[in-house]
């Protein structure tokens, strides 16, 4: 049973999301059904609750009840729905079975953005303290790191020393050069990686090969505030990187292979004195400018590329990975004729970060992705997102696909030609 104060507080959160675009999404669905087959979850599992329009309807009924005149006066007409504990359970089911891939949006004749509607659901769940606990803990950890980074800087830099030999093994440095520069004021480019060595070593080798004037961020790129749908935490996590970029006076912030990190940094930071690039864009630029050269013989086997939804469909980086792959292989095979309609890997929206709790669902809900990859006959499945890489690796194991799941940056680093 939900008390009045809780309901009022949650409705204030709902109202805070009601900008013009959101109202349009809430008022224009004609239930035409075009989105039915657009969702990988529905296409793989075939239940009505996974149709995009159905997910949206759960939010829309609350909107009709509390923010439309007819719903307030005559709630039995138009399927208005009371905000109750049961409604919150439905919101959870809808929001955390949606990866926010926006494939449904490109099919919708009105461009209704289900991911945005699910952001209302996620915010209400945060307000009711019903969100996945682990996502909030991860977001809070990121924020805490921003507050207390001075305490951890030295040990982090010491930890990076352990990686230097591996960086140099991929690209030999000249005397006086630093393998992994950190905290360099006046660097041109700030690279924001993830915690793992695999996110730092290949990138460092490529920056060094391209003679980039770069520096590594103290912070991880991923934004768990965005995954959990908490705008305040999303901004606090972003602000750490923005402050660091401004302090170091860099011209460009380059986000590692992490789809959400890139989209959020690119689209939510507003006007800044630096530009935001994905590492895939930067790598394509290095090849185009002749700053790095690649040896195609280092890639053995047919290659296909999974476009991460947050980098391709939702942020427009589509041509760059293909340009890079032209320089890595003569046997490249597309997953789909139109990359904007690519199937999601099934791991976005925080599902991979929720770990084994979501593993069974992630495997069942992404069988269409497996079929799509298998149809290419490729033996190497490249991608440019940590989330996608983790999910595709899980799918590879679960469905015994027999492909080698690779990060694009790792393939580039292994193919660098040192003249």
């Amino acid at each position: 049973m939900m008390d009045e104060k809780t309901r009022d507080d949650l409705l204030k959160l709902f109202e805070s999301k009601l900008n013009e675009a959101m109202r349009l999404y809430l008022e224009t669905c004609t239930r035409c059904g075009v989105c039915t087959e657009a969702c990988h979850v529905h296409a793989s599992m075939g239940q009505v609750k996974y149709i995009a329009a159905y997910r949206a309807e759960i939010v829309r009924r609350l909107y009709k009840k509390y923010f439309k005149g007819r719903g307030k006066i005559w709630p039995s007409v138009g399927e208005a729905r009371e905000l109750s504990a049961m409604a919150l359970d439905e919101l959870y089911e809808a929001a955390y079975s949606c990866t926010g891939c926006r494939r449904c949006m490109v099919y919708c004749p009105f461009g209704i953005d289900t991911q945005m509607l699910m952001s209302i659901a996620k915010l209400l769940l945060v307000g009711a303290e019903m969100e996945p606990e682990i996502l909030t803990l991860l977001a809070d950890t990121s924020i805490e790191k921003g507050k207390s980074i001075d305490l951890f800087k030295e040990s982090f830099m010491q930890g990076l020393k352990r990686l230097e030999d591996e960086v140099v093994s991929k690209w030999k440095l000249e005397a006086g050069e630093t393998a992994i520069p950190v905290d360099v004021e006046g660097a041109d480019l700030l690279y924001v990686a993830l915690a793992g060595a695999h996110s730092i070593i290949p990138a460092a080798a490529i920056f060094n090969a391209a003679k980039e004037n770069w520096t590594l961020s103290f912070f991880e790129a991923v934004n768990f505030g965005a995954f959990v749908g908490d705008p305040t935490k999303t901004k606090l996590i972003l602000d750490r990187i923005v402050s660091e970029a401004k302090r170091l006076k860099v011209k460009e912030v380059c986000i590692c292979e992490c789809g959400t990190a890139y989209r959020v940094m690119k689209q939510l930071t507003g006007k800044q004195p630096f530009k935001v690039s994905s590492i895939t864009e930067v790598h394509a630029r290095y090849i185009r400018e002749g700053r790095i050269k690649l040896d195609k013989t280092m890639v053995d086997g047919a290659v296909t590329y999974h476009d991460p939804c947050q980098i391709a469909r939702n942020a427009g980086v589509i041509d760059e990975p293909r340009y890079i792959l032209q320089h890595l292989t003569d046997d490249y095979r597309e997953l789909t004729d139109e990359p904007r309609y690519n199937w999601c890997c099934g791991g976005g929206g925080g599902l991979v970060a929720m770990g084994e709790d979501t593993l069974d669902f992630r495997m069942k809900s992404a069988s269409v992705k497996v079929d799509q990859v298998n149809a290419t006959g490729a033996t190497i499945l490249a991608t440019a997102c940590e989330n996608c890489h983790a999910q595709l690796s899980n799918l590879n194991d679960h469905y015994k696909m027999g492909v080698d799941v690779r990060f694009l940056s790792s393939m580039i680093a292994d193919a660098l030609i040192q003249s």
Partner: protein
Amino acid sequence: MSDDIKVDKVFDLKGLPCPMPVVKVSKGIKEVEIGQVIEAQSTDPGSLTDFPAWARTSGNEILKTEQDDDVIKFYIKRNA
């Protein structure tokens, strides 16, 4: 294993993708009693900032951090 700390459970987190080391430690520490100690083994340099920040957030305590050539070891006491 550290000579001066009694470890109750060891977690091998080497090579896991982001954010699994923190996810697994968050869940894993609940497998020991309050006051007991886990050893978390990582190869990620980012864990040197992630784990202390996680400990401050979750109310647990990092007793000691050791780095050798291959592995970073965190000795974490469950306080919460």
